């Protein structure tokens, strides 16, 4: 008998629910209930793990051409990812795309992408809304925090530890090269293997960083906590006041951290900035001008290690309104010669992100989700309970935007369970679409054709 006293009553353990989706040969509803990608989520529907790379192959090629350094050509310092479907609502797949590119790079530190020529890192930056990233120093703080959270800094420290000469080969052999966090990133693990961490390993790393030109205070904090993002956040980042970010934040990001990465023999770190409108729209004219001037100074021609080494690659995700807001300031600051924001040359710096073609894209996209949740592996590659026509119609109704389509299909499957539908046909998708409240109102960039006149004034 449970205690009804509100002070003492305990939550009951969740009962194992019946899998309602079993009759469709699915472990659960494969389509996400969240409209956005949450990279840190453990749910594969939300963290971008389920991704259909073929649908954005063209964009991926452009991304590699513009931003990945190769022996034969230099990459762009700054490039743009242009979303041409903002009026159709959110969910075109930019965040999933950026997240996928970050995962690709971080999986082997750019080994495959550069044919083994360079070591690369990548961070996916999502600015805060409400004007909290409209100043350049706030943007700099975001860069530092995101590089820490996405383990860019940890990777540099792990690499420095690995080549310090203080870790024997047999211990290094135990390290998983794709994920050194539990080993090289764990002081306790190293100590258990007889390695003196505090006075030997960390001191050596700190000394190496100081020799590379990193300021002493930063070098010591990196050596002590940089191997574990949580530690460095707690020991260093959280102690930086707004005043200090304003005064010295740019030195940390564009000098110290660049020297850290170079000391760890990393060729480049890509900063993939999502939702730039959260930076630009709240800015006033002066702030816009100042921001692009600061971009130029810190990425192109200022007295910083980043500029000397052409270290950071910057990808800014924009849409036409942002382009319009920034264009005069961008030109005035001379950034057009580094990365043309508008005009004929902009195509040389821009990845265009268009809505998907329903007929080509719907089936592979839906299969990627269904396959991931099939109970029996043999069932993979089958669209059931949908058919081709119904999934194509779902993407067409969603204006070629994948996010709303996935939401729609989630609702269709839920209704199929409730109503006991055996198979899902195009009419059922349309019916759910017409009552699907959670989807943002469709406002089409390419509007549908107007219905013809229902009368004929010449013939009637």
């Amino acid at each position, binding site marked *: 008998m449970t205690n009804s006293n509100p002070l003492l009553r305990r939550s009951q353990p969740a009962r194992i629910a019946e899998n309602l989706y079993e009759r469709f040969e699915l472990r659960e509803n494969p389509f996400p209930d969240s409209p956005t990608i949450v990279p840190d989520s453990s749910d594969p529907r939300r963290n971008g793990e389920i991704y259909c790379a073929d649908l954005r192959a063209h964009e991926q090629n452009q991304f590699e051409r513009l931003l990945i350094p190769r022996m034969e050509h230099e990459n762009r310092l700054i490039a743009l990812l242009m979303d041409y479907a903002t009026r159709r609502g959110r969910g075109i797949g930019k965040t999933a795309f950026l997240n996928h590119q970050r995962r690709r790079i971080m999986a082997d530190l750019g080994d495959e992408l550069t044919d083994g020529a360079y070591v690369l890192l990548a961070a996916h930056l999502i600015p805060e809304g409400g004007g909290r990233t409209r100043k350049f120093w706030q943007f700099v703080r975001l860069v530092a925090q995101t590089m820490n959270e996405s383990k860019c800094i940890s990777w540099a420290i792990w690499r420095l530890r690995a080549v310090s000469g203080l870790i024997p080969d047999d211990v290094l052999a135990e390290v998983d090269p794709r994920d050194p966090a539990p080993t090289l990133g764990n002081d306790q693990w190293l100590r258990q293997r007889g390695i003196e961490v505090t006075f030997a390993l960390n001191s050596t790393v700190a000394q190496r960083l100081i020799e590379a030109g990193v300021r002493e205070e930063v070098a010591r904090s990196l050596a002590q906590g940089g191997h574990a993002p949580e530690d460095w956040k707690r020991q260093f980042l959280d102690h930086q006041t707004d005043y200090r970010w304003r005064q010295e934040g740019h030195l940390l990001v564009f000098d110290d951290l660049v020297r850290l990465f170079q000391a760890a023999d990393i060729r480049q770190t890509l900063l993939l900035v999502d939702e730039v409108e959260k930076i630009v729209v709240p800015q006033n004219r002066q702030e816009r001008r100042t921001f692009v001037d600061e971009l130029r100074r810190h990425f192109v021609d200022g007295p910083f290690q980043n500029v000397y080494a052409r270290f950071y690659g910057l990808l800014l995700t924009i849409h036409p309104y942002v382009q319009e807001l920034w264009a005069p300031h961008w030109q005035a600051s001379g950034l057009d010669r580094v990365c043309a924001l508008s005009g004929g040359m902009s195509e040389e710096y821009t990845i265009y992100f268009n809505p998907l073609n329903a007929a080509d894209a719907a089936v592979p996209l839906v299969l990627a989700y269904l396959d991931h949740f099939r109970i029996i592996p043999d069932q993979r590659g089958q669209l059931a309970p949908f058919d081709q026509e119904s999934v194509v119609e779902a993407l067409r109704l969603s204006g070629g935007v994948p996010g709303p389509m996935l939401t729609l299909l989630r609702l269709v499957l839920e209704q199929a369970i409730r109503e006991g539908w055996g198979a899902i046909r195009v009419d059922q998708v349309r019916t759910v679409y017409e009552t699907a409240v959670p989807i943002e109102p469709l406002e089409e960039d390419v509007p549908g054709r107007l219905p*013809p006149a229902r*009368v004929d004034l*010449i013939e*009637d």
Partner: protein
Amino acid sequence: MAEEYRMAQKKQWPPPKSREVGLFTDLTLYAEALALAQADSAVTVFTLQRELGQRLQKMRLVPQQSERTVERLVREMRYFGWLQPKRQTGEKLSTAPHIMTPQGLEVLTLSHRDPRAFRRRLVVKMQETYAIPGWFVARLWQINPDGQGEVILPAPLPDWRPSSRSWNDNDWSNMLQRQTLAAARQSRQVSSSAFPITDQDWLGAVRHVWNRLSKLQPRGRRKVDSASYSPRTRLTLAMREAGVNLLFDRIPYGDQEPDFPGERPPIYLRTFMGWCPRLETLELIGYTDWHPRVAGRLLFPTSVFRSSAPTSQFEVLREVQNPCGDSLWLHQPKWTIIRDKFLGTLVSVHSDCSAQTGVLYVSLLDVRDEVCRQLRLSALCFDRFLAQAIKDLPASDFPWSIAVETDIREQESGGAGQLRQPVYLDGVPHTLIALARLPQDKSEKGASYDQQQPSFAPLTAGTHS
């Protein structure tokens, strides 16, 4: 048939007797001015300006007419033969007293007794004086005979919101070029033959007007160095002027033969903007600048030149003829003929609007514009038919409730939105409409109205207004 229509337009229209058209669009001014002339035995511009009452023009209150408007009103009524100068001394129009003619008295009586007949009389008089009403209708049909005369004058797409520029920064940029082409492309996408201009001609014409506007000095006391302008507003103006110049010139676009003798264009942008609401009120055309799927102005005729037509659907104006001798027939179907089509269209258009916005109550003005476009009805016909539809409810073959509301929507409470004609039901302007299916056996005839339509919960009051 379309080709025959095209061939029939080869002869020229007679030159207009006057080009000095008044740009006022409130046609009730004629009857009110005549009533004042009758009451005061003679009127001047000054007395008319003082005595013409304040009025609601569309959704905007106009407390007093400007002197220029009243002067144009008096001049027009002299052309029409409804007013004449009291003394034949060559006095200036602005100061001369005018008296009503017997023809004016007859028209005044007609305006009280039969407003519809009064409107038809106005069409005839305007045709005699300006030749524009009939020509305008014929030109719409000539531009797009395959699309029932539907024409689009493009404007920049709604999501283009550039920041203001300094007055001297007026170069024709790639962005302007892209926007100009995008607007044309979108117009063709929504209605393939409603904008038959080639990209090259369109681009050249818009750029030409843009450059002309860019050479103008800023208004008022603003100086060139400190003044700024909105690129969107200027490009909108440039597109509109270019569209009118290309499509409503004396020589039809893509043709060789002029419609009128002489060199002057029959219509300029300024007069075009005045004629559209006039012709709409006279039930010859319909137009809207607010169609949710169209960036720009959408025009369509609600009348046509024919040799004959069924009188159950059309009303003829024999005095208005095209150069081939065909008369103008106004699409004025009887309620019994159009009822099923009207109700079906109303349901489907409401459903589309509702799906677009995600709410049940949608703009009645948007619904009106689209229903009128699909059925080639005038706005006055729509008002009449909607009132009739509500009056007939509940109807066993139409299992729907119709609710209309008078709330002024934000869009119509200020700016250009105030110039949209509301829907009048029992003399009261209405702006919102919701349709909801009543619980009823779908096997009945009414099911045909709501194929593929969502089922809404029934409205509590059924119908109310």
